[in-house]
Structure formats: C-alpha cells, structure tokens
C-alpha cells in the first residue's frame, strides 16, 4: 500500500523534525528522564488507542473509553479499601470491567442496530455516574481521595531500568495486536466488517462477532490503562480519564486510521500517539501555558484530516486519469474493428422509412 506508506514516512519525518527543533530550543528535552516520561505518557494514551483503533477499523466509535477508565479505577480502590484480596488477584478481575462494558455496547449495537456513537455515549454517561456512586466516601458522604499504598499495585507505576512498565506493556500489546490483525482470520474479519459489511456477510463472516470483539477489546484496553494511570498517580478519583477520549481519538486519527472503516493498523496508532505526546511535551518544555494543549490538539486533528482528504483526492485523481487513458486506447481499437466489420457486411438492410 504505497499511499499509506508514504503518509507514514511523512509523519515519521515530521516527528523527527519536531524532536530536533525541540532539542535545539531546550536541551533538557533530550534528557533520558524527559524522554522516558514522554514515552510513559504516550503509552498510557497509546494502550487505550490500540483498542480504539480496532473499533475504528470496523467503522464504529467508542465514546465510553474515558468513563471505563474512571469506573475501573473506582473498582480497584474499592478492592483496596474494603477487601483483603491481594492486588495480583483483583487486578485481573477489574480488567473484566472494560470487557463487560464492551459486551454491553456490542449487544446494543448488534442486536438493536443502534448507532455506535449513541450507544457508547450513553454508556459513558451511565459509567460516569456509576464511578461516582461506587467511589469511596467519607463519613459525611463526600467522595474521598484514596491514597494507594499497596506495593504490588504501585509497582505498576514503576520502571524496569529507565523504562516505565507501562511503556513495555504498550509495546508488547502493540506487537500482539498488530500480529492478531494481520495474521489471524479473526483479524481479517475485522477489516472486512469495516470495509464492506454486506460483502463480509456474503462471504460467511459473522460480523456481529467482530463487533462484539472490538468493543470488548477496547474496554479491556481502557481498563488496563486505568491500572497504570492510578498506580502512577498513587491515587484514584471518580473523574479519572473522563475527557481523555480527545487524546485517544487524536492519536488514532493522526496515525492514519480513518473513520470510514476497513483501513488502519497499530503501527500508525503508535506513531500517532508518539506524535501527540511529543506536541504536549514540547508545549511544556517551551514554557507555553498548558492550557494551549487542547487547542493545539484540536488544531492538529483538523489539519491532519484536511491533509488526508486532499491526499485521497489527489491519489484518486491520478488513478482515474490513468484508467481513463487505458479506456480511451481500448475504445479506439474497438472502433477500428467495428468499422472493418461494417465494411465486410455491406449487404445489410436498407434504411427504414
């Protein structure tokens, strides 16, 4: 797919150029510490973005990811505050939160044929409320911040050597998901479901199963990110992750996965995530107000999508012109043949009156 490859090259080039400019303007950018923090932040968004990419490939959207992070974090603090269950047992359990939400989303999308956006937006609202309800409260009924002290739990926010665990998990998850997408039948079915659901069904693909799968995986990824975020912050609040959809969508779109479905992959998302984290980090490093961040992200989304639309029309224009030239030469040959035919069969009927 040379068009997609070229786009990716442009993005990587831009990534390196911005990095170079930043390190020139502020030498502390290149410090190992800063780079690792940048990667750690990119990884937290990136894990969620991997799940979101699969949803976009099926031409769906998942607005519930931010709220899944909130609820998962609340589930964890409940385990920590009220049960003696050790972290290595309840963490896998809490990851099921996201899977359950995905099951719920998938059910309403496939069974009732409701629009993905509406279903997941509704889930987002419901989950945001649930997060508040199950949040740990003080004696007056106010939400209290739980300080996480469990060493096993906190180790998720730690590092191996200079690299954060979340970064390692992100890279491994990216490899596995990319392999799954490209090298298994289930992965191929996800592309087919997004590209042309009618044709996919005609070919015998159970598109409902693909849809259930991607929403459950998206929920799982959001839950996984919740563990890392809360472990890193050493606390959890019920509004955790709400609003992070913006960063996730931006990463995936910058990475080149379109909203129309059937196209996209994890490498694009990884690059998009790094790109976004770099922009955010750069804004901080240049001493610009962090309030500018959302404006920059919004602006980048528009520019990238504009580029994609222009680029697509440009590429299609080239293809169309060459196809037309082929057609023209074919037609000319046919006309000559027809003329020869007409001369040969000269004894046809006369003109009708």
């Amino acid at each position, binding site marked *: 797919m040379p068009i997609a490859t070229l786009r990716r090259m442009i993005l990587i080039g831009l990534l390196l150029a911005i990095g170079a400019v930043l390190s020139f303007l502020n030498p502390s950018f290149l410090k190992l510490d800063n780079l690792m923090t940048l990667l750690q932040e990119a990884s937290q968004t990136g894990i969620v973005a991997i799940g979101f990419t699969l949803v976009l490939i099926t031409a769906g959207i998942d607005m519930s990811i931010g709220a899944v992070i909130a609820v998962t974090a609340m589930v964890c603090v409940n385990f920590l505050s009220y049960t003696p269950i050790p972290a290595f047992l309840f963490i896998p359990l809490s990851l099921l939160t996201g899977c359950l939400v995905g099951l719920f989303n998938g059910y309403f999308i496939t069974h009732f044929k409701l629009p993905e956006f509406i279903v997941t937006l509704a889930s987002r609202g419901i989950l945001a409320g649930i997060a508040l309800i199950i949040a740990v409260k003080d004696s007056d009924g106010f939400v209290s911040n739980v300080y996480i002290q469990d060493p096993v739990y906190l180790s998720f926010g730690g590092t191996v050597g200079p690299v954060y665990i979340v970064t390692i998990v992100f890279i491994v998850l990216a490899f596995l998901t990319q392999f799954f997408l490209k090298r298994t039948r289930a992965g191929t079915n996800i592309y087919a479901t997004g*590209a042309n659901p009618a044709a*996919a069904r005609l070919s015998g693909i159970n598109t409902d199963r693909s849809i259930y799968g991607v929403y459950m995986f998206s929920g799982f990824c959001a839950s996984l990110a919740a563990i890392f975020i809360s472990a890193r912050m050493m606390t959890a609040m019920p509004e955790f992750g709400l609003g992070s959809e913006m960063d996730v969508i931006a990463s995936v779109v910058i990475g080149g996965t379109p909203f129309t479905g059937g196209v996209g992959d994890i490498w694009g998302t990884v690059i998009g995530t790094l790109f976004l984290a770099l922009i955010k980090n750069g804004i901080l490093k240049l001493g610009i107000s962090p309030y500018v961040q959302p404006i920059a992200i919004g602006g980048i989304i528009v520019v990238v999508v504009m580029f994609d639309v222009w680029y697509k029309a440009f590429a299609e224009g080239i*293809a169309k012109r060459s*196809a037309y030239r082929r057609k023209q030469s074919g*037609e000319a040959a046919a006309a000559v043949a027809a003329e020869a035919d007409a001369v040969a069969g000269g004894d046809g009927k006369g003109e009708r009156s």
Partner: protein
Amino acid sequence: MSEKALADSPVALLECRRINKSYNGPMVLSEVDFSMKRGEIHALVGENGAGKSTLIKIVTGVTNRNSGEMLFEGRPIGIEHSKTAAQVLGIAVIYQELSLIHGMSVAQNLFLTREPRLPGLPFIDIGKMNSLAQELIDRYGFTLKATDVIDSLSIAQRQTVEILKALNSKASLVIMDEPTSSLTSTESAQLFGIIKRLKEDGIGVLYISHRMEEVYALSDRVTVLRDGRKVAVLEKAEIHPEEIIRLMIGRKLDDRDSVHTMRKSDREVVLEVKGLSSEGKFSGIDFQLHAGEILGIGGLVGSGRTELVRALYGIDPHDSGSVEYLGKPWEPGVAGSIRGGFGFIPEERRLQGIMGLISMTGNIGITNIDVIRKMGFVSDRKELDLARKAIGLLNIKPADPSVLVGNLSGGNQQKIVVGKWLIRDLKLLIVDEPTVGIDIGAKEEMYQTFARLAEAGVSIILVSSDLPELTRISHRILVLRKGRIIKEFSEGQVTEEDVLKASSGILPGGAK
C-alpha cells in the same frame, strides 16, 4: 475428460419447473420453466420488468418462490431457500455492484474466511495464501498479481477477482448480471475469454445482458422471458438478434399502438447543444431542442443518458462543447438553470428528489423559495398556497399539504417531484426515468401532464428505458450508445423494436 462426461450426464445442473412468484398482487413470474446443463453458457433475456432479476433472486435464495420445483444437480431445493444455502450448493453470483473488500489484496479476498493457516497454529500463512492465489490466477491465465490491492484494479480486473472467488469456493453455477455494462470493449473481450474458460471446466454460466451482439456471440442457449412468462428457449443455431428482439417484444408488435409517428417540431429552437463531451461519460453530443417538443433519449443503462442530462442541468461539469439557450451562450449550473426556467426530475427520486420526513408543503417550498419569499423571510401562507396549487394541478392524493411525503405512494411522490417544478414558469423540463416503480394509473396521469406541458410550449427531455413510454410520448428520439448519439428518429414511423435495435448497436444498413 471427466468434465465432458459430466456435461453429457442426463442430470441437469439447474432445473426450475413451473416457478410462480408474486410480491404482493400481480404475478412477477408465472409457470416459468428454466433449465441449465453443466458447462453451458446460457443467456437470460427480456425487457425491463420481464422477470429476469426475480428468477435470479429465486435461484440464489435472495427471495423465495411461491410455488414450483427447483432442482440443483438433481437434488431438490426447498421453498425456504437462502443465500447461504445457495453458496453451499455452489451457486455463485457476480454482482453488478462488486462485493469485494477494499483495502485488501486479491489473495485476501479470494481466501476470505478460508485463509490457509500455519500447521497446528491459528495464524494465517500469508506466503502460502499468496502462492495458492497466484496458482489459481495463473491457471486461468489472468494477468493479476495475488498481492495487488483491490483498490488499484480496474473494474474488469475486479470482476475477474469476483469470478476467481466463485471458482475458489467450488461454484458449479456462476450467474452474471449485466457483467459488461461497466466494461470497455477490450475488457469485455477478456471477460468472454474467461467465460469460455469456465465452460471448458464444466461450470455453467447464466448470463443476463441487454446487449444483443454478446448474447449472439457467447451463448449455447437463450431463454427469453416476457411479462413474467417463458416465451422461448433458443438453441445455438436459432440465435439471431432480430429473432430475440421479436420474442422479447412479442405481441406488442401486432399491436397498432406500438407504431408511432415521429414529428419534428418546427417551432423555435430553445436549446442547442454542440459537441458536448465529458471524459469517460459521453462525447460529441449535438442536438437541437424546439419549443413544445418532447425529446426522448433512449439507450441502454450505462450508455451515458443520465450523465448527459445531469451535465445539461449543470449538476456535473462537462469538458468541452457548448450549449446555447434561447439563442444565447449558456453555461450550465444548477442555480442558473433554476433561474433560467429549467426543471429537473432525477432518476433516484427518493434519493435526489424528495425529503421524506418533510411535509408536501415543505418539499414544494424548498425549490421555490424565491417565489414564497416575503421581505427576506419565507411566507407560510404563500408556501401553503403554492402546495395547494400543485396538489390541484396534479391531483395528488391525499390532498392534505401537511402530509409527510415519505408516507405517500410512489406515484404521488413522483407527482410531488414533478409538481414542485410545474408551478414555476418552466421553459425546459428534464425527466430521467419518470415512471419507474409507479402504477399504470399514475403513469397515465404523468403522460397527460407531460403532453399538456408540451402543448403549453414547455420543452421536455425524457430519458427512459421503458420503450413503450419512449416511443409513445416522444416527438423525436435520440438513441445513445457508449456515450454517443448512434441514431436519431425524427420523422416517419418508429417501433419499440427499432429503438431497441439501435440501442443494441444493430443498425439498419449496418452489419448483420
């Protein structure tokens, strides 16, 4: 070879006996017998509405028959047939709208859901998949690469992939619905080569086409349908284009109504088109349109008819040529067309002509904003008056302007589409397939409306596939073929047969 033996075996590949089908009310198919042998190329022909598509839908399980027997390779198929069941049996359809997955390679499409996997592992063996696909492609002598992405292929190449997909799923009956309508002549020639290849492999090919020369050149047998009945099955030696056309139109030939006198209008020229061309759509179109004239435009689907009128109205741009309107140079453009007194009734009226969730008043008002404006705002009273006027003019039922257009019958929806133009000061009306999907009564009313308009001096350009309609209400007929005017019927007598022959490229005085 064993294929030869199979082809000679007494059991037919497909056998349909006394198939009946009605959707609700009129019989679409009645007592239709149809049979196919292995390794046979069989053409199914008939006019629009003869029941070809319905028969195909029944065979492929898209819809179910009401009664009748169906046997595939000697095994009976129950009334409750389904698309999946048809696939399992080995019936494959090459759709006009291709059903390939974009963004995927040829190999991925060929092996979708049946990808070869690494031994003992759930992972796709991409190398093996590509080499198996390439083998299949080479076996049939195509010039495709297994790793080519679908999006980079031409329409003909995509069709090839569809056919390969059918072969790869071990289909023994391949159905092609107008496979050449979007192909160039070289591409069609390639396709015919493929079809012959399929025949050699003992696969039955059921072929639907309007193009007579193809039917003539390719088929072993031809089944002709007319008005939902089988009229004839022609063997190879009996296949002649003129005979097929005669059978398709049938009794209508004896009907005096089918001979119409063309009369060119001698009133002033309203529109003059010179050398109008648009890349890949139509080229070198010249004609004059007179006041009060109904100019029919015939030709097969895909001959460039719709594209031409869209360009005239200014929806799509053209590349070269010029248009003169009322004696002055004219640059087509939608807003200018409306101001200049053009009306346009599109082919897909549900899609392009009406807004189903809005009332009659709103639908009529939207194209006439300039008429119903009062100091810059829409005047509800004027809008309502306008709607009432249209209802009265066209006898729209129910006569309640507040009814949502989506709830009206097809015929009345069409009247709304027409009505919103008629209440304007119209000089030129372009209609594309105005009577598709509406009942006979509504059709008649529509024809009368057109005749009244023409009498009042409005020029009408009528694009239609309905031959009786075209020959009956037109003053003059242009026949398009492959984007060019191939024939003009402007004086003397014309029959449906003449138009159909011209559309199919069989010209009096020409070859064969």
